[in-house]
C-alpha cells in the first residue's frame, strides 16, 4: 500500500465528534459582540460615504474657481466661490445634526 493510499484510508476512518453545542454556547457572547461591532462599522462606512459625496460639489466648485482664476476671469471665479461659501455655511449648520445622529447610532438607538 502506498503512503497516499494509507492516508486516504485513515481519512475515511471515523474520528471522535466534537461537542459543537458546548462550543457554540461559549462562542455566543463573542458572536453578539462581533455582530454589534460589524453594524457600527457598516454605519461608519455609510457616514464616510455620505461625507465624501457631500464634498464632491464643493470640490467641483473649487476646481472651477481655481481654473477661472488662472485664466484671469475674476467674475467667473467669484461666481464659483459664492455657492461654495453658501455650502460651507450649510455644512457648519449641519454639523451638530450629524454629530447627534452619529452619537445616537453609537448608543444603538436612532432618535432622529
Amino acid at each position, binding site marked *: *500500500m*502506498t*503512503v*497516499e493510499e*494509507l*492516508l*486516504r*484510508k*485513515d*481519512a475515511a*476512518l*471515523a*474520528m*471522535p*465528534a*466534537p*461537542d*459543537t453545542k458546548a*462550543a*457554540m454556547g*461559549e*462562542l*455566543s457572547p*463573542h*458572536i*453578539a459582540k*462581533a*455582530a*454589534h*461591532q*460589524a*453594524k*457600527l*462599522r*457598516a454605519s461608519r462606512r455609510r457616514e464616510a460615504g455620505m461625507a465624501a459625496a457631500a464634498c464632491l460639489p464643493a470640490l467641483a466648485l473649487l476646481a472651477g474657481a481655481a481654473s477661472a482664476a488662472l485664466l484671469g476671469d475674476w467674475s467667473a471665479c467669484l461666481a464659483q466661490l459664492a455657492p461654495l461659501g453658501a455650502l460651507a455655511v450649510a455644512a457648519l449648520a449641519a454639523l451638530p445634526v450629524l454629530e447627534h445622529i452619529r452619537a445616537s447610532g453609537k448608543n444603538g438607538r436612532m432618535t432622529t
Partner: protein
Amino acid sequence: MLTDEQLAALAAQGNRMALSQLAERYHERLFRFYYKCAGPNMAADMAQAALLRLVERVHRYRAGPQPFSAWLFTLAYRLFIDETRKKRPLPLPYEDIRRIAGGREESAAAVERQEAQRLLRTLKPDLRAMVVLRYYMDQSYEEIATAMGTSAVRVKWRLHDALERMRKEAQA
C-alpha cells in the same frame, strides 16, 4: 440554504444568525483538522480558538475566486503554526486506536491508523498541515495554496516531497 459565501457576507454586515450558522457549520471540520495536525488534546481548544478568530475577523472577508473555506483554513493554518511556535508540539493521537479498532489493537484498521499517525508525526508542522488539508480535508491545491500563502505549483511540489519523506520513513 445559503452558501458559506452568502453567510459570510451577511455576517460581515453584523448578522448574528449568519455568523452563528457559519461557525456551527465549520466547527467539526476545524476540529478534524486540528485533531490530525495537533492531536486530540489540543483539537477542541484550537477549534474553539479558530472559531473565535473567525468571529473576530469575518468582517475582513471579501468574496473572491476561492471558496470561503480557503479563507477560513488560512486562519486555521496560521493559528496552528502560531501555536506550534509557542510551545513544543504535543504527540499525535494514539489513544483513539483502541476505540476505532473495537478493543482489538491488532486489527488492520488500527495498525494502519497508527502507521499513518506515526508518518504524519515525522513531518514538520507546515508540511503536516499541508498533508492534512489535502488528504483529510479534501482541499484542492489552489485552496491549500491560499491557506498557506503560496502557489499551487509549490504546494504540489511540497506535497510530493512530504509523501516521499513519509515513504522513506515507512520503509526505514
